[in-house]
């Protein structure tokens, strides 16, 4: 989850998010270097008493300041495109889960083997237990086995929503009448929080998403329990 006054990304829980983190570090460093250079030049230009009225053109520096930015852009574009194609690869998921957005809660359907479906409402602030996170906890979490590729089909029942979990690097719009596919694999067990990311009415800020990654036996126990309860 996010921490108060946090500036950077949340810790990555999936390989794709790790790639995104490293790419962001790489690109931000380039941006900082260029901005520092520009700021220095501005200060130097503004605070000098020298003037030069006789330079008309210079082919050499023009070549340099065309080639160098082009190289920098290529250095940014190549990793970016690689991650873009990486994010689109769906490699043989072990489980398919349907996440349906409603006003104002999510419902998850695990229909690969049995018919498991449940709703996931936010826990109201007055019902929170000590240690739980305000506006982020839900009554039922989307439990998945850790280290397994999972496919999530996102759609909506009424208006636009968006299923987003930042630490997994996922955001997928939930469009009524449309199935959007996304896939991920969690590299570590844990609880990962996200919030609805497309304005959907009065309680848009109050329909969070909680993904819980557990070892396979725990997942199997959980799904048997949920099936009994239903």
């Amino acid at each position, binding site marked *: 989850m996010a921490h108060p006054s946090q500036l950077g990304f949340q810790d990555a829980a999936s390989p794709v998010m790790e790639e995104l983190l490293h790419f962001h570090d790489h690109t931000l460093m380039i941006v900082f270097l260029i901005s520092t250079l520009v700021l220095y030049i501005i200060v130097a230009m503004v605070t000098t008493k020298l003037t030069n009225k006789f330079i008309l053109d210079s*082919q050499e520096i023009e*070549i340099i300041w*065309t080639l160098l930015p082009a190289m920098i852009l290529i250095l940014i574009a190549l990793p970016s495109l690689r991650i873009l*194609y990486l994010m689109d*690869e769906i*490699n043989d998921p072990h489980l398919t889960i349907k996440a349906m957005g409603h006003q104002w809660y999510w419902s998850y359907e695990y229909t690969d083997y049995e018919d498991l479906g449940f709703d996931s409402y936010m826990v109201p602030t007055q019902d929170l237990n000590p240690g739980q996170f305000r506006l982020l906890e839900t009554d039922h979490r989307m439990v998945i086995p850790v280290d397994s590729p999972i496919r999530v089909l996102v759609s909506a029942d009424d208006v636009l929503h968006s299923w987003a979990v930042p630490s997994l690097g996922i955001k997928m719009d939930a469009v009524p009448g449309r199935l959007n596919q996304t896939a991920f694999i969690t590299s570590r067990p844990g609880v990962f929080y996200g919030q609805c990311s497309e304005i959907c009415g009065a309680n848009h800020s109050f329909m969070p998403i909680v993904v819980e990654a557990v070892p396979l036996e725990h997942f199997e126990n959980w799904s048997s329990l949920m099936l009994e309860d239903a």
Partner: protein
Amino acid sequence: MLLTIRKQLKSHPALIPLFFFIGGGAAMSLMYLARLGLRNPDVSWDRKNNPEPWNKLSPNHQYKFFTVNMDYSKLKKDRPDF
């Protein structure tokens, strides 16, 4: 026209990188359009011999230009043939 360009390039060599990158960008855009027209399964140029190319999709055809981690030819094809 090309001769004029070459003459001007000799006195202004700074234009060479410009031609290279703009030309490269234009070439890449044209190649993308050509790929769309020829490889996109939604496009049919010959309605008699290739009427519905979107019905000829195989489960391990690679639709994307570039794969990082996946070898689509090695995908299992565990679905019925029609």
